[in-house]
C-alpha cells in the first residue's frame, strides 16, 4: 500500500519535471526558461524524492535533507544566473533578445549612471574654476 502511494507521488513529481523540460524548450528567452525551470523542477524533485521516501521509510531522513537542500539552493542558483544574465544582456542580445515589456532595473541603472556623470562633470567644472 505504502509502495503504491509513494510510486504515485513519484509519478506526479516526474510529470512536473517533464513540464519543466517542456518549458525549457518552449519558452522564448532565458528569463522565462528560468521561471519554468526553477519552479517546476523544485516541486517535481520534492514529490519524486518524497515518493521514494514513502516507499522506503528508513531513507526518509536523508531524503528530507535532500529536499531541504533543493528548496534552499535552487532559487539561489537561478537568482545568480538571472543577475549574471541581466548584467551581460548587451552581449547576450546579439544571440538572443530577451522579451521585456518593462525593465525597471535597466531604467534605474541608467538613471544612476546619468546622475554620476553629472556629478563628475560638476566636479571637473569646479576644479577648472579653481
Amino acid at each position, binding site marked *: 500500500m505504502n*509502495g*503504491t502511494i*509513494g*510510486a*504515485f507521488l*513519484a*509519478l506526479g*513529481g*516526474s*510529470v512536473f*519535471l*517533464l513540464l*519543466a*523540460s*517542456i518549458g*525549457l*524548450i518552449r519558452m522564448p528567452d*532565458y528569463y522565462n*526558461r*528560468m521561471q519554468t*525551470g*526553477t519552479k517546476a*523542477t*523544485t516541486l*517535481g*524533485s520534492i514529490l*519524486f*524524492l518524497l*515518493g*521514494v521516501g514513502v*516507499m*522506503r521509510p*528508513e*531513507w526518509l531522513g*536523508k*531524503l528530507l*535533507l*535532500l529536499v531541504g*537542500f*533543493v528548496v534552499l*539552493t*535552487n532559487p*539561489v*542558483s*537561478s537568482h*545568480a*544566473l538571472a*543577475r*549574471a*544574465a541581466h*548584467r*551581460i544582456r548587451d*552581449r*547576450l542580445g546579439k*544571440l*538572443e533578445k530577451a522579451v521585456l515589456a518593462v525593465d525597471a532595473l535597466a531604467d534605474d541603472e541608467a538613471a544612476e549612471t546619468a546622475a554620476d556623470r553629472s556629478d563628475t562633470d560638476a566636479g571637473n567644472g569646479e576644479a577648472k574654476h579653481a
Partner: protein
Amino acid sequence: MAETVFLVASGIALLALVLAGLRMALGPTAVDRTVALDGMTIIALSLIAAWAWFSGRGIYLDVALVYGLASFAGVVAIARYLEGGLK
C-alpha cells in the same frame, strides 16, 4: 504495481532529462545552457534516488547529496564567471 508505476515515473524523468539536454545543446546563449544544466542536475538528483530504490542500496543517496552540493556550487561559479568574464 508499485514497481511498474515507479518505473514509468523514472522513465518520464529520464525523458525530461533528455529534453533539458536538448535545450542545453540548442543554447543559443551561455545563460540558456547553464539554465538547462541547472535543471538537468535536479532531474539527475531525482534519478539517482530512483536508482537507489531500484538497486536497494541507500549509499546512492549520499551520492545524490554530494552531487547536488557540487552542482549547486558549479552553477553559481558559472554565473559569477559569466558576470565578470564576458563583460
